[in-house]
């Protein structure tokens, strides 16, 4: 008796015939009845008869080939679709019951037929992982893949990524790559296995952005709860600010940099940025991964810093203008003395750190802490990894803007 078999299960006075499905619990058989319902039946109390073996291939259901054969059109730009896993094209894992990514880029075309006719597509799979399992090593693989795709002639790149850590990966690529074409991250907040998924509009808008004239790393996700437009965020200024909403991503400290209207498929930008072709393609993929992000909370034991003794870099998410408790300052000074670069960001997220205002701040500056301006803590973490591996003076790099992450003026209404 295996999943996929047609079975007859008797339990008390009720007999059910149907297809055996994988069960998530040991105590129950799960049978799909002819009407489509699944029902769990107490394994011990049930008498099972296998009527026919392997009626359905449960494992590969939903993956049937019938691949779309997309023809090449000389008049269309070429967009490289790079998949890292995540929910833009995912399906249900019937063993764990969880939603996981199982599709490659080809499947995305099948999942989102609306993409056809907008570009010629090149599919590529860099990873097939949930975004919480992402690592800096995958960021590097991804940066190299994007670089290769652009080198091979892609007019734009769309990276499909799980939303949980999309902002980290997109930030990291902003530092690692200099790009003459758009590199657009997108994903979906509501799984692709539901008719209401945001994957279709996000993918379509991302392709539109990838064929636009803005050559930087962008993040393209729903602008509101409606399926009417996607916001384009600068990768280094964006944050996932909601667990489940379609419009979870927000640009912090400014309005989104642009917008893709779904109805008329126009891409508009509200602020200047690098034009297509203005920059030569370059890659600097090295990262110093011994960097940690530490959020300070009241009364927190300074021993938390002991774990960071050998770290190359530490990003602190301090309170308010960029503070930690006074009794932390000596420990921080020791760290810096031992060669760790320590940079300060704020858990306020909105606004800029300024350690010149209060005594604690001045003491932190004296201890050698580097202010990261209004750089977001997550962005600062990716940036510090990159700066430690690529810049002779990482501290100086943290004070300047490399990829739009540190805004020169605080004008959040623009």
């Amino acid at each position: 008796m295996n999943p996929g078999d047609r079975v007859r299960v008797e339990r008390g006075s009720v007999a059910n015939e149907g297809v055996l499905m994988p069960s998530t619990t040991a105590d129950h058989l799960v049978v799909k009845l002819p009407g489509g319902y699944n029902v769990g039946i107490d394994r011990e109390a049930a008498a099972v008869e296998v009527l026919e073996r392997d009626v359905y291939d449960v494992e590969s259901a939903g993956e049937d080939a019938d691949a779309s054969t997309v023809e090449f059109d000389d008049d269309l730009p070429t967009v490289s679709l790079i998949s890292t896993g995540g929910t833009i094209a995912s399906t249900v894992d019937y063993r764990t019951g969880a939603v996981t990514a199982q599709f490659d880029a080809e499947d995305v075309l099948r999942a989102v037929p609306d993409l056809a006719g907008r570009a010629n597509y090149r599919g590529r799979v860099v990873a097939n992982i949930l975004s919480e399992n992402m690592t800096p090593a995958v960021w590097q693989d991804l940066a190299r893949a994007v670089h290769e795709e652009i080198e091979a002639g892609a007019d734009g790149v769309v990276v499909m990524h799980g939303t949980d850590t999309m902002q980290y990966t997109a930030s990291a690529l902003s530092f690692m790559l200099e790009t003459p074409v758009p590199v657009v991250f997108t994903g979906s907040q509501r799984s692709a296995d539901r008719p209401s998924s945001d994957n279709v509009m996000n993918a379509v808008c991302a392709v539109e952005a990838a064929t636009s004239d803005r050559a930087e790393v962008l993040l393209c996700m729903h602008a509101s709860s409606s399926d009417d437009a996607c916001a384009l965020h600068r990768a280094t200024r964006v944050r996932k600010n909601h667990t489940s909403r379609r419009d979870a991503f927000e640009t912090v400290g400014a309005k989104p940099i642009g917008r893709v209207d779904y109805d008329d498929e126009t891409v508009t930008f509200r602020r200047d940025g690098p034009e297509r072709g203005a920059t030569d393609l370059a890659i600097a993929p090295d990262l110093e991964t011994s960097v940690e992000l530490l959020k300070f909370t009241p009364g927190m034991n300074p021993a938390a810093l002991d774990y960071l003794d050998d770290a190359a870099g530490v990003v602190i998410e301090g309170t308010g203008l960029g503070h930690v408790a006074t009794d932390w300052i000596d420990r921080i000074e020791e760290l810096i003395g031992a060669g760790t670069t320590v940079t300060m960001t704020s858990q306020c997220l909105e606004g800029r750190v300024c350690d010149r205002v209060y005594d604690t701040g001045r003491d932190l500056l004296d201890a050698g802490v580097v202010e990261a301006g209004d750089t977001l803590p997550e962005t600062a973490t990716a940036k510090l990894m990159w700066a430690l591996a690529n810049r002779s003076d990482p501290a100086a790099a943290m004070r300047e803007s490399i990829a739009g992450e540190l805004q020169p003026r605080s004008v959040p209404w623009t």
Partner: protein
Amino acid sequence: MSEYDYEALGLVAGLEIHQQLDTATKLFCACPTERREPENAVRTFSRYLHPTTSELGELDEAAVEESRVDREFEYLAFDTTCLVEEDDEPPGRVDDEALDVALQIADLLDMTVVDQAHVMRKIVVDGSNTSGFQRSALIGQDGQIETDAGPVGVEDLLLEEESAGRVAETDAGVRYSLDRLGIPLVEIGTRPDIGTPEQAREAAERIGMLLRSTGTVKRGLGTIRQDVNVSIADGARVEIKGVQALDQIDEIVRLEVRRQVELLDVADELAERDAAVGSPQDVTDVFADTDSGVIRGALDDGGRVQAVPLYGFDGLVGRELQPDRRFGTELSDHAKRHGAGGIFHTDELPAYGVTEAEVGALRETVDAGPEDAVAIVADDPETAELAIDAVAERAQTGIEGVPEETRDATDEGTTRYLRPLPGAARMYPETDVPPVEPDPSDVERPELLTETVERYQSEYGLDAGLAEQVAYGRRMPLFERAVDAGVDATFAAGVLESTLTELRRDGVAVDRLTDEHLLGTLRLVADDDLAKEGVDEVLETLADDPDLDPEAAVEAAGLAGVSEDEVRDAVADVVERNADQVEQEGMGAFSALMGECMGALRGKADGEVVSDALREEIGKRT
């Protein structure tokens, strides 16, 4: 029309009954199960839906057909809805109260409760669910109810979420209201054990009574919906959706049997004539100079006219299948499903501004002779093409007999085409909600309403009619509370049923009266703080100003505090004024003066107290 011999026709019918539950919160979120008016919406948003493959890798036919119509859905959200209804937050766990009520219902239907209930996603891409699916779980199997014509098996009991309410068609699609989405709903499916229209109605009534016996079902229009599955021996399974009124069920079954009988007859006739459906073609040229308003309008907007020749169909397109519904209406329904306004066919032409000459030219263009029929659609080019294909397809199935399909009930008891029958492929597991293991031993079996009626008669002395009215009425729980609080049962029943009905007829806004208003007023009477005669006025006052409590309403109505002494004084005054009459008639003047006394006291005093005082006062003078 004479009644058919249903047994000979092989009538097989089943019911699917959907009943909203009156729980405190929705099935998958903590929002109240409260209905709202569209104008109270606090925000709106819009979405598209895209069909996906199911767990078994198949696209559902019904889902695909729905999605062909690329529609934008607009949703109204309220201060009583949350992100779960907006499909912007995963659902919570199955609501405990809803599950308990479902288990109660399973018990009343003699069903076996499943060991483990799995919440499924039933694909629905018409926009009525923001997610694109309806969450539904199988709770019970294998039950039975009794009817006069024998037992009817109950196949399954489902606990599911109610869909969003349709507010209006918009230019781009449909507007829905989220207040209804997520209200717990039970769906009860009977076996196809029903053999006559009357039995269908009786089974529905029986199930309705059992549902109401739980005391936790919603009442009022739209809170219960009946679907009826009907087929006859050579016909096909037809699922009729959305029968609102119980007393329509027998008529719906009767008319559907008639439709299938007529369709079979049409099919026989078509077979005899060796009928065939030709290829659709563009006949715009025929109507280049037409004066037909419909066609002219379409052509002026850049539209085209498409035609399909129906060889051998002459006279049959106009055949009546149900009152006011012809075979041509069936073809038209399919055209409408694809966005067209409808069709014209040669059985009804010349008419609608289409001339005899145009009909002749039309027949000639598509090579149709006098024994043939032609159907046409005029609309924008794409719609006209889709619509005429749909018409051709439906005409083709007409040659074969009765198509299996889902139909929509009309107010007249007839039906119209809605969509293909849904397939089993439209289900996949709702992985956001873990399976639940229901424990049926937790729930108590409620008193059946039939038992309640008997109890009201034996215990409270209500007559059979009033007992039934109260027991089946929506104020039954309130009645029980009032009686528990010491209010006389007959009096409480009279107020809650007759008085309120009379007040409503008199234009009093009785809908604004809360349970607390009613209970409070009844208690004032029970505590002798208000005369029975003053109840109408107090309720009217409360309906005018629902912010008042009953005590304040008594004050406001000027009915408060009439002491026995005041009653005596008022009665004495009346007797004094009518001294002559009393002298002449003695006690004979009683009824005339009683009315005057009550008027003088303006209902402030209890009738019995007044009559005692009056009797005494008259006695003094004679």
